[in-house]
């Protein structure tokens, strides 16, 4: 016989994401899901942001990688609570993976939790994990064609951080086009041009984070 069902396929994920969100809200933690392609500078941005915040805001980090613990070691060396998730092949973090590590973080003490997603410009945009917002990084070495080639991530993100801006004079990249195309895909997107290496532009980003959680 035919059975009528009206289920969203990602319902199971969305349900767990909502559970996570409730826990974060109860604990007073603002959660940022940080996404980018591999090598755009997610961990570098976290390091500079953490240094720039100078302990005024209590930060925790969940690191998502297919394998390895290098990123978590970098964050750990800054004295920040960090949990490494190894997805063992999956190209994104999902709500359940986050749910399983919540007890490993001192949520009561945190103001902000950064979830560093697996480096990938496609799949992480599809899965909610219980975050307050998604933020993406695009480094200018990746080229100005990326917003139109990977639109979903630009549409899902509340902010776009354009990183490695210190390399601009060495590249044939049109940063204005990146900004224009990102804004066409997602008009309210906040855009920050930064260099995690020189520290340029980091102030604006950090101030914005502070206003969001105050």
């Amino acid at each position, binding site marked *: *016989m*035919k059975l009528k*069902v009206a289920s*969203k*396929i990602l319902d199971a994920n969305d349900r767990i994401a909502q559970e996570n969100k409730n826990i974060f809200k109860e604990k007073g933690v603002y959660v940022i899901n940080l996404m980018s392609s591999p090598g755009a500078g997610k961990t570098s941005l976290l390091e500079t942001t953490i240094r720039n915040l100078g302990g005024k805001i209590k930060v925790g980090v969940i690191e998502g990688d297919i394998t390895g613990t290098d990123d978590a070691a970098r964050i750990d060396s800054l004295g920040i609570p960090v949990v490494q998730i190894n997805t063992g092949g999956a190209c994104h973090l999902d709500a359940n993976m986050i749910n399983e590590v919540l007890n490993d973080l001192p949520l009561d003490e945190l103001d902000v939790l950064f979830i560093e997603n697996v480096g990938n410009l496609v799949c992480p945009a*599809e*899965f909610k994990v219980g975050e307050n917002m998604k933020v993406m990084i695009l480094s200018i070495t990746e080229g100005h064609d990326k917003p139109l080639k990977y639109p979903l991530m630009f549409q899902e993100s509340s902010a776009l951080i354009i990183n490695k801006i210190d390399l601009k004079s060495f590249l044939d990249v049109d940063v204005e086009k990146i900004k224009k195309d990102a*804004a*066409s895909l997602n*008009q309210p997107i906040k855009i920050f041009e930064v260099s995690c290496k020189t520290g340029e532009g980091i102030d604006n980003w950090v101030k914005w984070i502070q206003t969001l959680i105050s």
Partner: protein
Amino acid sequence: MHEVSIAQSLLEIAINNCKNNGFSRIGNIKVLIGKASGVMPDALFFAFDGLKADTIASEATLEIEEVPVSGFCNLCNKDFTTDEKFILACPHCDGLSYTLNSGRELNITEMEVF
């Protein structure tokens, strides 16, 4: 690659629905996929066929209906439907303020059970 997670979730929903209604095997499953959902039907077929073995859905088939992107432009106040996967602006007036009504679906609508 994320089609594997989506196929896994789809399979779980189908199996639970089948068992909860007292049936033991699954036939055809109808699925709606929005063109802007980011899910590729071919990759979903492939992932589903790989995952269904040794389950009560081992002989199940997927029937995918793609849903076009449609919306309402807040600037020219007109409805639009497009064959594009992602839209940058209203197809009528190029306005950037619009509300999508369809195109992001990822739903199971009907399944055959025995």
